């Protein structure tokens, strides 16, 4: 009996502790969401208004990044991974570099085609 009562008290303590932990998180979560909402409402230049505005702005930026990370983890595919700044940043950077290089190569091909057209025209003129 005594043993059961001790167990009840212990359980209550654990529950109380967990409730306190949940409450802290709930409060922090509400504070966070409020900061994000305030941050989203900021206009360009407002970030420099002071520390509070800076934290709110930072919260909004972090939240936007978090949403992108969530989408990426949900497996939106390569497109969203490339646009995210998360773990696949390296892949995204490589894709961008590859696209830029591919463009440079194609541009070079264009220049060569144009020069070839001029060379062919001069050949034609000489032969005529």
């Amino acid at each position, binding site marked *: 009996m005594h043993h059961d009562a001790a167990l009840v008290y212990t359980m209550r303590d654990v529950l109380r502790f967990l409730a306190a932990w949940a409450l802290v998180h709930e409060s922090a979560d509400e504070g966070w969401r409020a900061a994000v909402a305030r941050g989203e409402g900021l206009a*360009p230049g407002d970030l420099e208004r002071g*520390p509070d505005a*800076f*934290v709110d*702005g930072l919260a909004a930026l972090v939240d936007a990044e978090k949403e992108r990370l969530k989408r990426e983890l949900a497996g939106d595919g390569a497109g969203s991974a490339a646009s995210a700044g998360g773990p696949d940043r390296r892949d995204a950077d490589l894709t961008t570099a590859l696209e830029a290089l591919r463009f440079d190569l194609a*541009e070079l091909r264009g*220049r060569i085609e144009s020069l070839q*057209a001029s060379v062919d025209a001069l050949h034609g003129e000489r032969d005529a």
Partner: protein
Amino acid sequence: MSARGRTIAAVALRHGATAAWRSGLGLRPRAERRRAVARALRLACEALGPSFIKLGQLASVRPDLVSPETVFELERLQDRVPAVPVDAIREVIRRELGAAPERVFASFDPEPIATASIAQVHGATLAAPYRGVNGRLLAAGARVAVKVVRPGVARLIAEDLTLARRWAERAERIGWLARWRPNALLREFESSLARELDLRVEGRVGDRFAFDFADDALVMVPAVVWTHTTRSVLTSEFVDGWLLSELGDAERAGIDARALATHGAEVFMRQVLVHGRYHADLHPANLIVTRDGRIGYVDFGIAGRTTPPQRRAIAQVLVATAYGDADRALRASRALGLEVPEAVEPALRSGVARLMRAHLARSPADVRGFVTGFLGLLAEHRIAIPEGYGMLVKALVTVEGVARAIDPDIDLLEAAKPFTTRLVADQLLRPERLRERLPAALRAALAELVA
């Protein structure tokens, strides 16, 4: 003096005399005098032909070189010249591409689509398929626009430039004229003209623009057919659609022109603030609304560049302008090369603040009014306008004008916000900046949590 020299002198004298008469022999108010001179300059350019029309057009995007009145007057330069006979155009194509146009293309229209001082454009169709630099395939039979430099124009410009060089040398020795650095100015114009006369440069700028906006489904840039492009011939995809002057037809066909105008303003801001390359001559004739509801960009002859530090400074200027903060706008302008002597700073600051209240503290903001006033202020205080700055503000005003003609409620500063926010935030979140600010921010965050 050569015959051409005598012609130029006679035209300059005639229009100079008219300007003097219209400005009441210098007795009328300053603004009126400037307008009279600007008008005479435009008419003289029109009378003197290709090189002067081109010079005028180049000057019209450079408020750092000429007064605001001249800039806005030169915008109206009529680049209407009689068409070159098609046989002369055929000869240029034969010389440049090695065969007559009828052999190079599946078909070639003898009637030009457009004629201007430097070049003339003819329609044609491709004889064989071609894959453009950006990967798009143009099928055989695809319609293309063939831009051909007018025969003899390069020689005429070279002759005019030889004369101009001699005059610039003399002007350099005359005190009040030397202030305008005629030799340096001429060299700048020469290199701009050389770029304009080499159509490959325009083709490359267009390809790069298409690459920058490959992810934007509403932007259309004609693909260049490089196998049919040389220094004097530029062959590119034909952009079929409506000119901005025919928007009524476009809207009747179900195109949302207002949405396109808003998007066009955002595209411009993205060019300037993200890519650092922008179309600096976005007047209505260079924009086409395509049949499938996209914005077609053509004629990349005049383009501007912005470096990363300049982009950050421009973002700061735009943010400061949006918030009516004259002090911050001037501070950020320094990073763009604007040198304000200490003695005139207070007067300039209060002048800018006054202009901001008059033109920007309303919705939509009147960027043109602000810019015109600001350039006038700089001229009044004899402050030199840096080259990039001048070209950019002029491009900004042109874009606003084009967008406003479609939707009078468009606010360019609003269109810039997403890009300026990102640039300013990136700047604020730099590690060194964070290290500097984090302790105070953390203290504030902890205080909030404890509360």
